[in-house]
């Protein structure tokens, strides 16, 4: 496998883990627009330990999860008191504060960033992404997963049913934060360099969009969302040059235009977002969809038996 594809596999795996980290709070109805903050925490923990103490990946990643998870747990108490717009703003502000603190920290390299000596190839992220996926599917099949979705639908009734709303929200938020930390740690070891500019507001927005567009009702959603929006730009890479030239001439610009490669990817992501919100706001994969697919599979089996 070439370096290009192994790179894409690594990014895909990291994005899947990251998306699950945001999915857990969103599944309880809490929009988390601070994903980049938790990812940055994990990335810098891994980078710091690898750079200064030469810790192996097997030790940096658990600590990345732990630190991000504990911070998530601690900020969850004040932050989850906020609701609606206030919660979105609170999580957003949290990520900005984290980025600002890292930027001002000399031990973490400030604006320069930190090199990460330990490199991991695509194998580690892929295996971890698979494990995280299994973990989230398991979690959603438990009573904890059930009450998470119940809290999402109706907090008042969930409370009357005996659900510890605060506990469920905090747990989902903290576990999600830990997963974001893991995604950050893997990011550090994959790109062997961390700088705080890589964990900006746009990153938080993107990962939230992966999750919301994939669908928040089942654990399939983030998997589809992250995969779709990671692989789509690669497909576009082949088609884009012509398209780009056409748009440039539309704006009255002649000659060769060198636009950053990422821009089109974001335009497409934005377009898909707007169209999805118009036609299918509940996301790609929904509960009725997965339930519909289930009996159909059975029916097909039954049909086969009859034919035999």
């Amino acid at each position, binding site marked *: 496998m070439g370096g290009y594809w192994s790179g894409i596999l690594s990014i895909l795996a990291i994005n899947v883990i990251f998306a699950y980290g945001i999915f857990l709070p969103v599944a309880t109805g809490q929009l988390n627009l601070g994903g980049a903050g938790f990812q940055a925490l994990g990335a810098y923990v891994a980078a710091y330990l690898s750079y200064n103490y030469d810790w192996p990946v097997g030790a940096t990643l658990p600590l990345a999860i732990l630190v991000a998870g504990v911070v998530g747990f601690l900020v969850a108490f004040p932050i989850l008191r906020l609701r609606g717009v206030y919660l979105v703003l609170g999580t957003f502000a949290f990520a900005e504060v984290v980025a600002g603190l890292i930027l001002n920290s000399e031990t973490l390299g400030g604006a320069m960033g930190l090199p990460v000596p330990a490199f991991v190839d695509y194998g580690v992220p892929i295996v971890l992404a698979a494990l995280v996926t299994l973990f989230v599917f398991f979690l959603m099949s438990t009573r904890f997963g059930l009450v998470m979705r119940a809290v999402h639908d109706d907090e008042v009734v969930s409370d009357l049913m005996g659900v510890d709303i605060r506990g469920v929200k905090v747990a989902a938020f903290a576990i999600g934060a830990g997963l974001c930390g893991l995604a950050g740690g893997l990011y550090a070891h994959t790109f062997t360099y961390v700088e705080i500019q890589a964990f900006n507001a746009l990153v938080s927005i993107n990962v939230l969009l992966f999750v919301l567009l994939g669908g928040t009702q089942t654990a399939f959603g983030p998997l589809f969302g992250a995969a779709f929006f990671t692989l789509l730009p690669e497909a576009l890479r082949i088609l884009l040059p012509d398209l780009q030239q056409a748009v440039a001439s539309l704006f009255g610009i002649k000659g060769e235009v060198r636009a950053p490669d990422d*821009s089109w990817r*974001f335009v497409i992501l934005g377009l898909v977002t707007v169209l999805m919100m118009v036609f299918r706001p509940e996301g790609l994969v929904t509960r009725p969809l997965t339930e519909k697919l289930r009996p159909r599979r059975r029916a097909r089996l039954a049909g086969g038996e009859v034919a035999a």
Partner: protein
Amino acid sequence: MLLLQQLVNSVMLGSVYVTVAVAFTLTIGILNFLNFTIPTLFMLAGMIGWALAERGLPFGLSGPLPWPLALLVAVAVAILASLVVERFTFRYLKARYGDATEHAIPLVSSLGFLLIIENLVRIAYGTDSQRFPGPEANLTVEIGGLFVRLPQIVSLVAVLAIVAALSLLLKRSRIGRGLRAIAENPDAATILGVDVNRIVPVVFVLTGLLCGLAGVLFAINYGEVSPAMGDDVGTKAIAGMVVGGLGSIWGAVAGGLIVGLTETMTINYFGADTVQVAVWGLLLLVLFVRPQGLFGHNAIGKGKL
């Protein structure tokens, strides 16, 4: 005297934040909608203004336009873009089951528009900062030993006039009453005969107007525009809105000025890199301690998003 000069500078900086913060607070107060396209509209106005003044109309239809005309067109473009956003966020919005995250639909849609507009501008004009060929920005007057640049004074006066007019519009006019009825309760407003579908675009026209003006003022005052100019101003404006209290116009004015002051003072005493921590830390503090801000009502934005 140095401190006073700093104060003057921060008021000037704050007036840009104020304009954008008022746009934010208007959409949240009336529609309970955190519109993430607002910083992008601000940037769009600045970039279109620059492109027209520097390059002229697209398709080579004209040479460079005089800058006042370019800026006028830029504001119009921002208003149009804002109406496009309205068309695809609110028109199609039908809350399906009324649970927690499905009410985030317009917010998510606006995030989509943020990506679209900002990146189209990057594709069309590149990512670099551009010098805006506006009026001489160095026209300085000295008032009692304080140096104030003329365009800044004009901007500040213009901003305050606009906000006062807006606040009067909301209080006195028929449209204003309709808007406030929607803010109280959209369903009841419909029953009372307010045509929600016709009056909601008014909010977006005002949003586009405010953002367009802010972008134009920014271009004139700082003589520089870039596709990233909305990010910083947008986040500071959000901070200003939260400090002032969601949904309160005069709160946004005060909040924008406070944020401008915080920024100037932080830079002065601790250096530029600490601004982010100071402004966002202030915002988090306000959210935790007094979520309704200095002037806001407790009810707005608290409900399910």
